């Protein structure tokens, strides 16, 4: 479109957005601001859980079973202790459990998305840039992956990992397997987007120019192509994060999630749903509301980010 074309390397969309408009549109979107505040508060309280939480629910020695099922802000009939959000069946302080559980959920979510992102970007870049057989193999693998529903993939990986891990490591293993399982079921969309963008970018003048002056493919991919695909990747990553947190919860409902001694939000909800009819609503309600707030805010942020980072839609 440029009337007097000057061959300059276009700035990446992300860069431009950060420079100028991102913060501006952010300030103009009350939804985005509220979501950001919620996410920030939740993430901070998860990270700082050891400082904030009144008790450490992961330390079994500190639990008093007789505190079990204490309603919120009501003294326990036996021990007289009182808890802000009540206690669960093990006498764990629900508030502390949520803080610690959110840590696990967030850790699993972030790590899984990061894993999926790194894998997806790498494979997407390679298949888009190199093409040929490499591309065919990678994208067919992606098809196979898509052929299989993500929860089945996750269950499969969980099953295999459980089988091959030495028994003594299984407890710690659960979380890493979750990360692997969710990450592996999630990389395809990163790969597809990155590959698509790479196909477009690699024929642009600046990439051709970089190639002509003898840049290595690796350098071209990292320095020139990658920055241009970062904004869609960022959007997918945000939404994937919310999905990963929910996926973890779903897996734990199917019995392949985080162990109950180190419960994630999902595990807490699975445990809590058993008390839905028995009147101990707080065991379900508080974790569920926390999960909803977390996932919803991340989703809303992702939504806003997508619109904000896509200059064509503004």
């Amino acid at each position, binding site marked *: 479109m440029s009337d007097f074309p000057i061959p300059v390397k276009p700035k990446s969309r992300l860069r431009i957005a950060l420079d100028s408009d991102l913060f501006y549109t952010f300030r103009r979107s009350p939804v985005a601001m509220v979501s950001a505040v919620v996410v920030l508060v939740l993430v901070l309280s998860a990270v700082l859980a050891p400082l904030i939480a009144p008790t450490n629910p992961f330390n079994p020695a500190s639990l008093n*079973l007789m505190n079990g099922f204490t309603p919120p802000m009501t003294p326990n009939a036996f021990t007289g202790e009182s808890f802000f959000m009540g206690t669960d069946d093990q006498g764990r302080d629900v508030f502390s459990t949520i803080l610690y559980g959110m840590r696990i959920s967030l850790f699993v979510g972030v790590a899984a998305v990061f894993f999926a992102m790194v894998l997806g970007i790498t494979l997407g870049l390679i298949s888009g840039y190199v093409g040929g057989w490499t591309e065919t193999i990678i994208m067919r693998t992606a098809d196979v992956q898509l052929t299989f529903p993500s929860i089945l993939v996750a269950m499969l990986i969980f099953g295999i990992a459980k089988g091959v891990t030495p028994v003594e490591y299984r*407890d710690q293993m659960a979380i890493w397997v979750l990360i692997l399982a969710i990450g592996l079921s999630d990389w395809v969309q990163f790969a597809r987007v990155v590959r698509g963008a790479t196909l477009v970018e690699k024929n642009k003048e600046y990439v051709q120019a970089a190639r002509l002056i003898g840049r290595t493919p690796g350098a071209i991919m990292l320095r020139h192509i990658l920055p241009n695909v970062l904004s869609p990747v960022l959007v997918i990553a945000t939404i994937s994060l919310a999905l990963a947190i929910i996926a973890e919860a779903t897996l734990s409902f199917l019995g392949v999630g985080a162990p109950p001694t180190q419960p994630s939000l999902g595990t807490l909800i699975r445990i809590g749903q058993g008390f839905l009819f028995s009147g101990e609503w707080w065991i379900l309600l508080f974790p569920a509301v926390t999960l909803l707030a977390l996932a919803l805010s991340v989703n809303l942020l992702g939504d806003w980010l997508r619109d904000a980072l896509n200059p064509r839609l503004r």
Partner: protein
Amino acid sequence: MRRSLRLAAILAAFAPAVQAEEFTWAVNTDPQTMDPHAVNSAPVLGFLNNVYEGLVRRGKDMTVEPALATSWEPIGDGEGWRFTLRQGVMFHDGAEFTAQDVLFSYQRASDEVSDTRSWFSPISDVVVVDDYTVDFMTSAPNPIFPGSIANWMIMDSGWAEANNTALPDKENGNYATLNTNGTGAFRVTAREPGLRTVLEPFEGWWGEAEHNITRAELTPIQNPATALAALLSGDVDFINPVPIQDVARLAENPDVDVIQGIEARVIMLGFPHEAEALKYSSETTDTNPFADLRVRQAVAHAVNVPAILQTIMRGNAQEVSQLVSAAMQGYVPALAERPAYDQDRARALLAEAGYPDGFSFGLKCPNNRYLNDEAVCQAITGMLAQVGITATLDAMPVQNYWPELRADNYDMYLLGWSPGTFDAEHPIRFLAATPNEEKRLGSWNFGGFSNARVDELLPMIQSEIDAAARQAMIDETTKILQDEMAYVPMYVQPLVWGTRSNIELTQRPDNFFILRWVTVN
């Protein structure tokens, strides 16, 4: 409630028809087969008790009472048992019940491919005396034999042979897997595995009907919350089990009744008696602390059973000190006391055993086998940690659990045991006897507990006819098991059923749901 409204409408329309009483119930596990000899499991046997009958049956209080046999008596000096059969009994297809059917059912149920054959291991021969008399010869005196075959169900020989199901086939299934032909009060009119099973009263039943059901339907519902919702919304009339935590709430609901009892199942902790060393310890890798009696005793004192019962079991279970509950034959009232919850004592015992700072180990636990099994293990983990021994809990579905235990992959494990014979001999045979493949002893004694005196007492208990002498031997065995702390029995699992309040029924301690005791009001 909506059901009964609809029913009322139907009744109004079709008056003066016979009052139709439909009954729907939900269980968490569908009976996997209709073949009474293929699978020895509570869901199967419990359900089939409504369709098939044995020579004897258990009454509302578990007493052995006549069924297809009207009487039985020992032969000679413990050489066997003679059963006199009931006359005029018909199978659902109209065939007459005779001694031939008993013999056939014995052969079928004791065959190598039958899951029930262990019931007949004491039997050396079965002799048909006449059409209504059968002798069961035993290799040694067997005082409890009649009671041990209450779940052995009689199948019509003609029907089985005509339908090519002379033997059960667990792997591939056969006609009897889906079809039934018993003598019981109900016959199966529709069977869709995993979905629903429909029963209707058998008009030709020999007994007097206590129930008023005209049609009954069984539906499996796995998710406890869904089952509960179905009961609360009136979609089903009865559920088993009721999640323990919902008991109090349900009890307050006027539309629903909760029926509570004590099940036969004892929940206990097991130890690796024979292991050289711990498998899941981060520091104690060269020795096995649980081989030391004092450590096992420390565990018993560290576990706060009253607290578990109070919170996790919501006051619906009872403490137990033996491998059988107080309702079982052979229970020893004198040894009813459990080791007291005493953390100081536990710490002292550990110090005495050379573990003043405790140690770490791995606790294996199922998470879908017993009531709140995982929560109980979690609580135990906490309690043990408080006296210094820190467990890493590995809870898993039962399908992974038994292979793990068989492979000795545990430092401590949770086990529940329900004696099929309702007799204290049963757990001794399976849990306390030194494992012996040939004699088929100790097959669930994963930890390899071994005590010469117990091994010596077991055959004597099995063959002693005199009740007092037998009880004395059981007393001695029980004392040894307690002293040696072979297991740490903790509590008897509660039995909680839920019904709509217009239903009357009787709960039997073996958790069998007997349809002929149900009245719909």
